[in-house]
């Protein structure tokens, strides 16, 4: 059973239309023939410049959107959650209410979700702000809420988009430690980050995406070294 991948992308290409002006379609290519496998218990890091297609790739993996070409296979019955920054909050609701909806959206029952809220509150260290509308939050506070409400739900595949890159140093360390605790067992993680130190610390494999194509695959050290070369050359 464990020889089967948890998540597999086969020849995945993706593009979409986005209007720049009226009567225009504007075709944007995001991913171009990407194939990769994530085994159970793997922690895969994805590096690439802004706009390289990393977030789209996570959304495809999570099944939020579907690719124009190619196939995405997830192990049958595997649950999946995408943690991303700032997104997914309803601004007029309090942190507590947002955490409740967030947990219920992951399939947690209302009773269990309500029971987990105090743990979320404690982890975020937001104090009384947890009861205030999210529109009053700073970006760091949003990141705390997003990370805590996502991490406390148990899923088979955790997709993390930049969540660990913001917030103050103390919370980053706490979040990193919490992540490392989760990574020991069967937890499968795909991790997008610009923080090279975190990638090296957490991931056992990494890929580099550039202009929608897979440029390199290997250990985080190797991939980051290759990724840095052309970035340095561009300067």
């Amino acid at each position, binding site marked *: 059973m464990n020889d089967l991948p948890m998540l597999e992308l086969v020849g995945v290409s993706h593009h*979409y*239309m*986005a209007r720049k002006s009226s009567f225009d379609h504007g075709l944007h290519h995001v991913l171009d023939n990407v194939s990769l496998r994530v085994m159970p218990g793997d922690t895969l890091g994805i590096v690439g410049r802004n706009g390289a297609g990393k977030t789209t790739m996570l*959304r495809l993996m*999570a*099944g*939020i*959107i*579907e690719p124009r070409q190619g196939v995405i296979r997830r192990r049958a019955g595997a649950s999946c*959650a*995408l943690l*991303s920054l*700032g*997104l*997914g*909050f*309803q601004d*007029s*609701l*309090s942190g507590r*209410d947002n955490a*409740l*909806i967030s947990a*219920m*959206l*992951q*399939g947690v*029952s*209302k009773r269990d979700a309500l029971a987990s809220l105090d743990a979320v509150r404690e982890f975020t260290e937001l104090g009384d702000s947890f009861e205030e*509308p999210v529109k009053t939050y700073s970006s760091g506070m949003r990141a705390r809420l997003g990370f805590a409400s996502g991490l406390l739900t148990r899923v088979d595949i955790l997709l993390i988009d930049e969540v660990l890159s913001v917030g103050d140093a103390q919370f980053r360390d706490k979040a990193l430690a919490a992540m490392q605790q989760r990574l020991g067992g069967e937890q499968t993680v795909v991790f997008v980050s610009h923080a090279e130190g975190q990638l090296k610390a957490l991931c056992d494999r990494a890929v580099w995406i550039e202009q929608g194509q897979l440029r390199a695959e290997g250990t985080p050290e190797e991939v980051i070294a290759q990724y840095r070369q052309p970035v340095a050359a561009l300067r």
Partner: protein
Amino acid sequence: MTLSQYATLMDTMARLSLKADASRYFFGYVWWVLEPLLYVLVFYVVFELILQNRKEDFVVFLMCGQLAFVWFSKSLNQASRSILGSKGLVGRVDIPKSLFPLATIQEGLYKQAAVFLLLFAVLLAKGYTPSLVWGWLLPVMLVNYLLIVACSLFAAYLVCWVFDFHVFISMATIFLMFTSGVFWDPRDLDPAMTYWVLTLNPLAFLLDAYRQIMLEGVAPNAAHLAIVGSIALLVALAGLAVLRRHSRFIALRVITS
């Protein structure tokens, strides 16, 4: 997601949104009944005071029609933008897209319960007494709800597909307000015209049914009500199927809009 999880989530989203909405306004929950009453007031000033409408008990006549119409129009307009307005959630979780319009409609349903209570209080104060015929209000309200769901699911889909549709939806609500007998009585028209208005416009039929039940003590045409209800149910089920089938297409449209 099981059906009961879906229903709990929809209801929770509606209740939390009501709470957040109330805390945003100084008058909070009072707006639930204040807003529909202000609509009635505007029409009252225009039609009773300025245009000197001769209809007996015009305020009660107006309230019976208008309060039900505002339920329909507000729910439809808010639900039609609900998926697009939840860009953050749509881009983060693969959830049934029908949750958003249905939660918005659920929110309207809670408000409407308070509005109907107010309407009953006004009717009692004006000397109208409930009779057994008032039991017909339940199926009429159910069909009214189904009509809202049917229209809203397709409207929400169309607005995600091409944003320009929201202009049509606002226009359509204004058109319906003038053609559904909100401030005029279809029964005052030439009998042939009365027949066509009540047959072709399900909303006009429902508003008339509310008035017939509460003001005249007359049961509505059961066969007509059943037909409107069945069509609305079928369209609503088709809407659910469309939103389900095109869930990822909708997500893509919303994310890239």
